[in-house]
Every structure is written in C-alpha cells, then in structure tokens.
C-alpha cells in the first residue's frame, strides 16, 4: 500500500503520480490521506489501480476515470466521477450535485444520498445509490442504468433517452416524457446484477423496484408535430 499525504505533497503531485501508473504496475494499492475537501482528487486515472481516499472530497473527484477503482471514505462534492469511462467509484457517504454526469461507462456507487442532477446526461455509466436522489436526476440520460434504493426528487428522467431507471421508494414527480414501465424478467436480472455489484444486494430485492424509462415521444421525430419544430 502506497500512502500519499495530499496536504503535504499537493494535488498536482498526486495526480501526476497516479497518471504515471500505466499498464502493468506493482503499485496497485494507494491511499490518500488528508483530502480535506480538496478538488479534483484522483482525476483522469487510466490504470487498474485501487485508490482509497480517507476523508471527504471537493469538486470533481475521480472525474474521467478509466479502469481504476476509487473509494471515498467520506462524502464527495459536486461532479464526482463526472464523465467516467470505466472502472468503479464508491462513495461511502453522500454525493453532491451532478454525480456521475455524462458518464460513459463503469460503475458509480453512492452509499448515502445523492443530491440534484445525479446522472445528468449519463451515456452508459451504471449508478447505484443506496439512499435518495435529488431533483432533475437522469435529465437527458441516454444509456446505462440508475438504481435508487430510496426516493427520487422532482422531475426524474426529464427528456430521457434510453437509460433505464429503477427506483425502490417514491418518486416526487416524473419529468417530461419519463413514464413508469413494466418490469420484465430481463430487467429483474439486470437489477439483481447491479445490486450485487453496487454492494446493495443485502439491502434490497429486485422485486421491490419500479422501472422508469422514456415514452419516446419527445426525441422521436413525429410528422404530426412538424409544425412545432
């Protein structure tokens, strides 16, 4: 285990050290101490390493992540795992707004609550939230899955494309063109796998969720609406 003291060694040194890890490396386990809410911790990683942040982080932690597993032993500020490509990011506490925004792949797990705009414009990332999510989550979400064990705030899935949304608790309101859909066997199977990978299989069962998706009326060109475009 390599230990990096962020307060003593600084952010640029941290990220350049982690960026230097490429291909096969023996230094696969890292711990970052004294994060103190700093911004841009462990962004742009591109190696199969395991990074544990001992404390809470500020803006954009683990952004653009590829391959790496990043664990935050605290809460994360705005934009955690933004535009993640692959790998896994696990937040033990809460995540602030737009967690996992525009993510193209990989898995984001939030063990507490996520606030507004979680998964906004997600494009392939999977997001599992153990608690609740705030308003405007999954806005314009294109693909990937979002699993919420708690409740969802206002305007869930507004202007949704083909992302799959699963919510166990209540949904304050659905956004434009987002509707409840039937849960078919393949969805239960997908959900069971996501709950397992999201370290939530002991907390909830697939049958307890409702599925939400796009009614496909907003983004599909309709000749009857031609005059409105």
């Amino acid at each position, binding site marked *: 285990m390599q230990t990096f003291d962020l307060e003593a060694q600084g952010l640029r040194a941290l990220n350049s050290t982690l960026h230097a890890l490429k291909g096969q490396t023996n230094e696969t386990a890292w711990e970052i101490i004294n994060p103190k809410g700093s911004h841009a911790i462990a962004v742009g990683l591109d190696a199969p390493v395991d990074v544990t942040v001992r404390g*809470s982080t500020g803006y954009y932690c683990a952004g653009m992540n590829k391959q790496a597993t990043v664990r935050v032993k605290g809460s994360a500020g705005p934009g955690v795992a933004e535009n993640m490509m692959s790998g896994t990011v696990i937040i033990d506490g809460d995540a602030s707004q737009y967690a996992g925004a525009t993510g193209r792949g990989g898995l984001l797990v939030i063990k507490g609550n996520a606030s507004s705009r979680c998964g906004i414009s997600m494009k392939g990332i999977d997001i599992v939230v153990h608690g609740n999510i705030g*308003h405007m989550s999954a806005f314009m979400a294109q693909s990937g899955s979002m699993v919420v064990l708690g409740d969802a705030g206002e305007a869930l899935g507004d202007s949704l494309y083909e992302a799959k949304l699963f919510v166990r608790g209540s949904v304050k309101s659905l956004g434009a063109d987002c509707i409840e859909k039937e849960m078919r066997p393949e969805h239960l199977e997908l959900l069971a796998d996501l709950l397992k990978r999201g370290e939530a299989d002991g907390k909830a069962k697939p049958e307890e969720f409702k599925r939400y998706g796009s009614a496909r009326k907003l983004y599909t060109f309709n000749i009857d609406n031609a005059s409105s475009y």
Partner: protein
Amino acid sequence: MCGIVGLFLKDASLEPKLGAMLTDMLITMTDRGPDSAGIAIYTRPEKGKAKLTVQSANAAEDFKTLAADLGKAIGAMITIVSKDTHAVLTLPSDMLDAARAAIREVRPTARVMSAGEEIEIYKEVGLPKDVARRFDVAHMSGTHGIGHTRMATESAVTTMGAHPFSTGSDQCLVHNGSLSNHNSVRRTLKDAGMTFETENDTEVAAAFISHKLQEGSKLGEAMEATLTDLDGFFTFVVGTKNGFGVVRDPIACKPAVMAETDQYVAFGSEYRAMVNLPGIDTARVWEPEPATVYFWER
C-alpha cells in the same frame, strides 16, 4: 461564484474563538471570491448600549473627532474604536436611530455598515486574508457570524458592493448567486419606505427580508417568502440578533454544505471551508435541500 461561511455557536466556551474560526473558513474560500470580502460578527451586547459600524475612505480624518461631533449632535456620550477604514461607535441604544440619521449630516463621507446592539460588519475590496488582517477579525469573539468572499457579477467591485449587506438593525445577509428581478423588487420596496445605498441585487434581498421582519414576520417566514418573490439563483445566509438562517432557491445550483455538532452549526459553500472546525469528523454534515428554510434561534 462567491463563497459563504457561517458559524452559529451553541457552546459559549467557543465564543472567544469565533473570529479565528471564521477567518480560517473565509480564507479557505478565497478562490471562490478574491474580489472583496466581508464579515458580520454578533458580539455579546452591553446593557443599554448599541453600536454603529461606519466606514470611510478617509478614515484618519473622518474618525478623529467623530465620537465628539456625533455625540454633540444627538446629545449623548459616544465612544469610538477605529480599525483601519472602519470604526465602531458605541452609544445608548435608545439613541441608535438618531445617531444613524445624524451621521449623514455630521460626516457625509462616512458610510454606515451596520447598526444594532450586537452586530459589527467589516468589509472591503481585496483578498479575504488581507481584509481579515486589516480588521483583526481573528481576535474577535462573538456568538455567531457570517462571512463572504465575492466574485462580482451584478455590480461594481467596491466596498459598498461587498457583502454582508445590512438593511435593518442587527440584520445581515450574504448571497451566492444572482437575482433577475431585483429592479422590480427594489421599486416595490422603495414604495414601501425601504432605502437603498447601492444598485446591487443582494441588497434587495437583504431589504426584502428586513421589510418582512418589520411587518412582523418571523425569520423563517421572511426567508420562506424569498422563494416566491425573488427570482434567480441564490443561496442566502441570514443573520439576526439571535438567529442564523439558510435558504437555497429551488434549482439549487449554488453549492451549500452544513455541519452541526453539540457546539455549533456551521455553513460553508464547500466542505473544505469547515475542515478545521473542532469535531468536524464526527459532525452531522449535510447538503441543505432546495427551497427549504433552515434556521436556528437562541
């Protein structure tokens, strides 16, 4: 951007350290607002006394005989403590309104930052660390306080455009965001008798809350009304003589984090503003919900 910090103490043993804790929080928020900085501190009141905090660009000359001149004008005993461009005048509390009115005649170049039994406001253009040092905020004690680091959007970078804004006795407000209907709200408030010293949008929010309080609203009700009558982006932190409140607009894109322990309630635009507070590792830390009023009163 803009940075906000706030501390409301529950444990009196922390009161001597209030200024030091707020200074540390304020300086951490420098990169959210390096234009100007300000701080409102509420101190334990002296019985029967009130304070007027004034500012002048020409402090040495303006403050030299100010206590005597103002005292003569209103017929009261006034003491003065100068700190850089600011001075705190202490006078009988029943003379506060008279003093506030008289100072316009006695020293037209001096500007009133705050008035009340407990509040003192210090604000200037410059980096937060320099502003805090000039007024020696780190050595101030108090019961609660609010600070702001400004990145200006809606009006000029001047002393009067810095936050906190105070539009009522012992009241203040700081703001991260921008209001879009401040001109029309200002007109309505002017018609209702409120006065304004700047073109700044935040001053309108402060006056809006002061006006509601004057009309008899409670702090929570006055803050609730901002959600229906003010349009734009905002996270507000409000201070009153015995209270401390937070409200965010329904879209809530301006960041906010709160922490509470048995000893204090703290506010920061970001968590990193609070990392050096005592007991933060075990504090209850949360993000205030959109369109939800939070307040604490003693």
